């Protein structure tokens, strides 16, 4: 029985990386992109999730539990691998290592991020809006931590798409795998640029308002 569940557990980890965690990340970034339309639009967008009657169920069932499962199992999977990047200096071996390195960075970032912006709010009752987040990000240390955490998460997601497609036997030949790698690289660059621009805008916003 444990045999059967080993395969299932590992594949569920792979699956949750895209559905729903990866999908959530995309939606989350779309919501955050309203920063480019100004403070009112941003408040309206992040308020979307808060106003829905389904929110508690979505937050626990579609975000919380899958992220927890993927993250905790991911830490285990990272722990049982034995890195050999200096012995076998191949590109893919480095990406394999980076997938695990960014996993740990993302782990620290995401849980801190969720705690500060979502869980702490339950106790303090602070309204989550443009002003609060902009004030928060105007601290240079927080801003730098966000840039690092964000890039790690996005790298992990993009390289994860490549890896996911192999883990499920969708891309089999090297041509298909390399093609997907090019697409994933483009997605990473695009998300990276847009994200940094958005975070920079948020971090400077307080100054602008004053």
């Amino acid at each position: 029985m444990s045999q059967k569940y080993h395969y299932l557990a590992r594949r569920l980890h792979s699956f949750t990386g895209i559905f729903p965690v990866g999908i959530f990340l995309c939606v989350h970034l779309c919501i955050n992109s309203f920063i480019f339309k100004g403070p009112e639009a941003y408040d309206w967008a992040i308020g979307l999730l808060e106003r829905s009657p389904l929110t508690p169920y979505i937050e626990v069932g579609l975000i919380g539990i899958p992220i927890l499962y993927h993250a905790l199992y991911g830490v285990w999977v990272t722990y049982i691998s034995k890195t050999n990047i200096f012995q076998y200096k191949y590109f893919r071996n480095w990406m394999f290592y980076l997938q695990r390195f960014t996993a740990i960075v993302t782990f620290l970032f995401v849980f801190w991020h969720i705690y500060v912006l979502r869980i702490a709010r339950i106790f303090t009752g602070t309204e989550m809006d443009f002003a609060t987040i902009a004030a928060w990000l105007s601290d240079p240390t927080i801003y730098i931590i966000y840039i690092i955490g964000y890039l790690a998460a996005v790298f992990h997601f993009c390289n994860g798409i490549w890896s996911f497609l192999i883990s499920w036997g969708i891309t089999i030949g090297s041509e298909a795998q390399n093609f997907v790698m090019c697409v994933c690289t483009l997605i990473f660059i695009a998300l990276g640029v847009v994200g940094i621009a958005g975070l920079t805008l948020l971090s400077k916003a307080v100054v602008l308002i004053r």
Partner: protein
Amino acid sequence: MSDVILKIKRQDGPNSRPYWEEFKVPVAPKANVISLLLEIQRNPVNLQGKPTTPVIWDCNCLEEVCGACSMVINGVARQACAALVDTLSKPIVLQPLSKFPLVRDLMVDRQKMFENLKKIKAWVPIDGTYYMGPGPKVAPSVQDERYLISCCMTCGCCMEACPYVNPKSNYMGPTCMAQVKLFNAHPTGAMYKDERLDAIAGDGGIADCGNAQNCERVCPKEIPLVSIIAELNRETAFRGFNRWLKGKPKGPGLAAPG
């Protein structure tokens, strides 16, 4: 004849402490690493001029078909018999494979791989009580694909380079995955197709692969391990869904217990 310095990681037995010893060995033109080790065997004196025990290693065919002489040469797992001294950077550093139990010096016990091959039924079932006639025909395209995989000599290089083959994990390694494909692609071997897929969908199976893809890079036989693993990822997933959606097949129970 010029001289070359060899740096060898030695260990007197499975439970002894490893240590490094250096040797200065004369090389003939076009020599391989095995001939350097033979030279040490002939004259077991280390770089400091002290007599020592000869270095132990394993080898057999001397033409890269048996896999026995695998070791870590300048950091990378490969066959000592196929490692030409002229092409190696000096000093040459030799270490035993680290993912297998050590016997002595450069000799390891690769038995674990053969045990894993039993788990996946890496054979064609032809034993019976009567003559079963000639085997079915195999299309040349399938022969081509199978030929490449059949070159596998269970040398262990792919295991050595894989980040998921280590004491913390039970992963059977890429060798086994290649053999599943080899025997599933054979018309008679395919009788065990589902059993093999179930075996690699179990503990230590294919799901442990993390797509580092080192295996294919170090494989001396250039077996397309990456595509083989990806294809079996697909087949195990389909098999899993099907088994669940269809339910267990009913019948009088002629199939041998998987």
